[in-house]
């Protein structure tokens, strides 16, 4: 169980700047830290830089022609900037990408098995992890022989998370798990994230647009806006913060306000 008083930082991102294709500046000095055994939420709208932040940690950035030009990223104290994604997976950091990215022409079970690609252990250990994943996601056990491309969005999200679990990770970078899912499914997925966090002791860094759900499950949060962290703090405080309520939860002091009012108000009042 996560103890907010007694924490140990596993991941430390300090002041990173990310440039795509040598031209486009996406992150301008993002700093954040992830505590061991906690759920950290990274919030913000489209294009705020959430995915880019996650990709600079998992080092998937380079294959998209992006580069961390300034700042540093440390995992368990080691500088990880020059490692490749496979090294990161071996160190226990794995990303679940936005939009699931299942291998469509592989079966659900084959998808899960690819998650064990970097593992050295024998067949028995992998089988054990498979059982673990099926216990968390019983639905995947039923669908294990079907091609992942033919399963539903929720099942694909479960497959993607299960696949990451197969690498026996210490930290999962979860990018927008709620995308395109029905509210009920979103709750279901987040419940499982919570269980994995508590029972398997997996730390999460969670990028979400769905601020409401994310802050309900996270221990602390960061809010990104155009490549900068504009606010951070324990999830409880963020939930109560009037600005967050106004801009991200769509509520005003008098309760829910309409979208139109929110927008006009936003133009006048900005952070920074």
């Amino acid at each position: 169980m996560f103890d907010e008083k007694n924490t140990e930082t596993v991941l430390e991102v300090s002041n990173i700047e990310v440039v795509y294709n040598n031209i486009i500046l996406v992150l301008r000095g993002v700093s954040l830290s992830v505590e061991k055994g906690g759920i950290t939420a990274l919030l913000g709208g489209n294009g705020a830089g959430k995915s880019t932040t996650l990709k600079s940690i998992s080092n998937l950035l380079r294959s998209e022609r992006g580069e961390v030009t300034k700042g540093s990223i440390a995992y368990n104290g080691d500088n990880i900037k020059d490692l490749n994604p496979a090294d990161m997976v071996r160190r226990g950091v794995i990303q679940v990408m936005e939009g699931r990215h299942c291998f469509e022409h592989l079966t659900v079970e084959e998808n899960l098995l690819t998650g064990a690609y970097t593992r050295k252990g024998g067949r028995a250990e992998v089988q054990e992890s498979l059982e673990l994943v099926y216990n968390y996601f019983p639905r995947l056990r039923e669908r294990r022989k079907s091609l992942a491309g033919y399963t539903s969005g929720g099942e694909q999200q479960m497959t993607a998370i299960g696949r990451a679990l197969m690498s026996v990770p210490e930290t999962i970078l979860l990018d927008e798990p709620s995308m395109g899912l029905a509210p009920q499914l979103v709750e279901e997925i987040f419940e499982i994230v919570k269980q994995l966090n508590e029972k398997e002791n997996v730390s999460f860094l969670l990028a979400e647009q769905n601020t409401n759900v994310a802050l309900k499950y996270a221990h602390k949060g960061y809010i990104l806006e155009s490549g900068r962290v504009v606010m951070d703090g324990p999830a409880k405080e963020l939930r109560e913060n009037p600005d967050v309520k106004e801009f991200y939860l769509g509520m005003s002091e008098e309760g829910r306000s309409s979208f139109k009012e929110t927008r006009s108000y936003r133009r006048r009042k900005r952070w920074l």
Partner: protein
Amino acid sequence: MEILHMIFIAPFLDMVALPDLFFQGLWDGFVGGTLYALLALGFVLIFKASGVFNFSQPILMVLAALALVSFYEMGINPWISVALVLLLMYALAFGVERVILRNLVNQDGNILFMSTIGLTFVIIGAAQWIFGGVPRSMIHAELGFPVGSSEWPMFGGAVYFEHIDISAVVLASSLIAILAVFFSKTKIGRGLRAVADDHQAALSVGISLNQIWVIVWFVAGIVALVGGLFWGARSDVSFALQIIGLKALPVLIIGGFTSVPGAIIGGLIIGLGEKIFEIYWGPMMGGSVEGWFAYVIALVFLLFKPQGLFGEKIIERV
């Protein structure tokens, strides 16, 4: 009427009249088909793993065959020569990954395709410079493959089986079977299919693209060596083998670019089809229809079933 009879009736009457000749044609076509299938498999593996249509596969076959013969001519034991060629193929796979693929990652498929054309000409130049361009004969006898032929009485006549053809069929089909199992059952095979489906996701679970690329190019090199050995034994070891290697292209169009069974079936269709067509319809068209028959079939497929017989199912959820 005369011409219709020539096209639609006479050939079939001939088949029935001389069943031994027909069977001979089928056998020859089958041998060719198996070897086409093997070569096509080399293309399929690289296409699946890196999305590159590897134009240099045929020249790899020439290179492997030429190198094998040349090493032997230098006085090296034939089996050690085989090992050396494998080493050369591995070095090439490694080099291609380092120099070309790694630097062109995430580029458009056409750019990668062009780079393999470039690679083809580099290999042609280098091979001519190092090994010379004179046609030579394959060293299959020295490698212990049986030579000569047997005549089996059949259908009131006789069918000839070249021993080297029997070896070719056996070796090529076992290699195809091994590759098919490797592809569908092993961890690396699974990784390879994962890369084919989604580069980024494969990276995210820790599959090393660079490692996968070296493996598939090396496998393509092994396929090239086996192909070169047997095509070289059937004709000469020369740069003309490249034309034969390119026939894997229509095979792929028929079978589908991403399908292992497709490569096998496509290879057999082309091998059998062109042989039978050559024997029964060739004479009325002035002979040597074998050269273009495959491409005409491929064109028909492109018009009516462009994804091929077993091409990637386009998954659509509604």
